[in-house]
């Protein structure tokens, strides 16, 4: 098991290195001149050239990459060309807020999605099943930004129950903090329920038809035991993989949702730095997202292994 985790961490590191190269490569293609961006549009050309030289922007790309990677590894994430501030604290702040948003949404997605999936499977082909299907389809059938606006118009403008946007730190009080989370969370959850619930539904249906569930029924076990003890556990295994993917999707979902709800997290930072060609910030932010994504997958795999004795104990036959 330890060897497995070690192997996975080495792989993740390799993937992250490759992602950093990819991101670096794409960002060097961006139609923007870093020196120009730092100095502003009114800087004279000779100044721009001098700074380019100083920053090594005329060096071969791989040299630039190594320099950047080296600094990154030593904890120096560089300075935002646009905001003239060190990136690290900026990023950490945004990351913290995004993690709160994604984790709360994720837990809700997992609990509600699995719950709905199980209900639909148990009532397979009957009204509750169809209701769940339609509701979750609606969530994925319309882009998140549409629902986000609907949430704003209904809950903030018409009903006035929720703040329309923004973020309040926890120091402003738990209730205020929580209230600002509700609308973006609602949007994210609604937009991401379908995958988990549909998968849970189909794997639950399949497991309920599996020979070992028939065998459990043949033993005369109460239906509650059959469903919860025998079926659910195995039915959840594929859901875990999908939940990990969903965590990644959430990291994508925050791009739109944070932009609309003016939630100052990682997603907005990415959009902002792309739109403003703030390349050092962009590189750092994207890498952080990739790392979170990768580790979410690792956690899912470990959880999967933990719940699945076949992987947990290897293949040695007694």
């Amino acid at each position: 098991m330890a060897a497995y985790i070690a192997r996975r961490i080495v792989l993740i590191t390799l993937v992250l290195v490759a992602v950093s190269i990819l991101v670096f490569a794409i960002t060097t293609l961006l139609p923007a001149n870093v020196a120009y961006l730092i100095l502003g549009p009114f800087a004279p050309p000779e100044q721009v050239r001098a700074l380019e030289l100083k920053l090594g922007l005329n060096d071969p790309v791989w040299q630039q990459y190594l320099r950047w990677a080296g600094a990154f590894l030593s904890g120096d994430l560089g300075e935002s060309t646009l905001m003239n501030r060190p990136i690290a604290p900026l990023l950490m702040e945004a990351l913290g807020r995004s993690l709160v948003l994604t984790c709360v949404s994720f837990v809700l997605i997992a609990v509600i999605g699995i719950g709905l999936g199980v209900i639909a499977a148990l009532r397979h082909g009957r009204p509750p099943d169809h209701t769940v299907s339609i509701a979750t389809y609606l969530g994925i059938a319309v882009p998140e930004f549409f629902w986000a606006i609907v949430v704003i118009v209904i809950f903030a403008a018409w009903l006035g129950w929720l703040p329309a946007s923004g973020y309040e730190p926890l120091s402003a009080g738990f209730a205020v903090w929580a209230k600002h989370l509700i609308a973006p969370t609602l949007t994210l959850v609604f937009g991401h329920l379908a995958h988990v619930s549909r998968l849970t539904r189909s794997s639950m249906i399949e497991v309920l038809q599996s020979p070992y569930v028939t065998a459990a029924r043949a033993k005369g076990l109460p239906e509650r035991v059959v469903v919860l003890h025998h079926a659910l556990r195995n039915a959840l295994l594929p859901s875990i993989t999908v939940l990990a993917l969903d965590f990644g999707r959430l990291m994508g979902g925050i791009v739109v949702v944070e932009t609309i709800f003016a939630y100052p997290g990682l997603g907005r930072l990415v959009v902002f730095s792309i739109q403003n060609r703030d390349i050092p910030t962009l590189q750092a932010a994207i890498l952080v997202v990739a790392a979170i994504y990768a580790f979410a997958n690792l956690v899912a795999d470990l959880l999967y292994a933990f719940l699945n004795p076949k992987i947990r104990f290897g293949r040695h036959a007694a």
Partner: protein
Amino acid sequence: MPPEGSVFAPRKPLSPQLKAGLAITGAIILLGLLAPWIAPHPWDTISMRTRFLPPNATYWLGTDEYGRDVLSRLLMGTRLSLAMGVGATAFSLAIGVPIGLAAGYFRGWIDEALMRAADVLMALPPIMLGLLVLAVTPPALWKTALAVGFVYVPQIARLARSVTLSLANEDFIQAAKARAESTSYILFREILPNAWPPLIVEASLRVTYAILLGSALSFLGLGAQPPSSDWGLMISEARSFLDRAPWIAFAPGLAMCLLVIGINLLGDGARERLDPRLKARVKA
């Protein structure tokens, strides 16, 4: 577990799910194809006098902030949304399927290399990867389609790989090897025809992902450009008027909803019909 009946059973009738999916998707495709002929008004001509009209006998779905007919725009936009979804998916199939075939068939280091490369692309949420790719060039709808297609290449490749892996163990592949068939014959004549059904099912669902991702990118300013009547752009432009003229946003919103649900029904229904045990999508 009903016993196997005669092998000459008549073809299974279509499930209601599949019928509904076919009807919805077919109707939308048909409307999209006929749009230039059936659209009642020009889709992009500004008219000062007809702004913000609610749905009425002349403008069935009302008019927008430029006085343009929402129904005509919606119909013309059908083509763009479908082209976006289908184009992106075709691109990801064209790239992803050969990669998946190669990885699944050759195994070994080719597999490792291709799948790790896929991991790299999959380490970023699709929308961020799309943003990055599109930030490099001036926006255009076809570029968005390509970018969205590119983003989904690894997932298609993974699915093609897992299908290929299971097919490569089938005895008919051994039979082909036993008559010294070339690798390309085995890949494209023996494996690919059998890999299509799950791939097509998956691809049909990808079309909806592509439409949604494309519209999200449109929303962020990359992709369709005004006065295009791409659904995503329509929704995103109309959102400022949601409380004043909700029909402008709801018409494309509902249309997109219908299309996505139709395609999903179609894909799910087709999957169950083709092979009830097919669960490759989960792994993809």
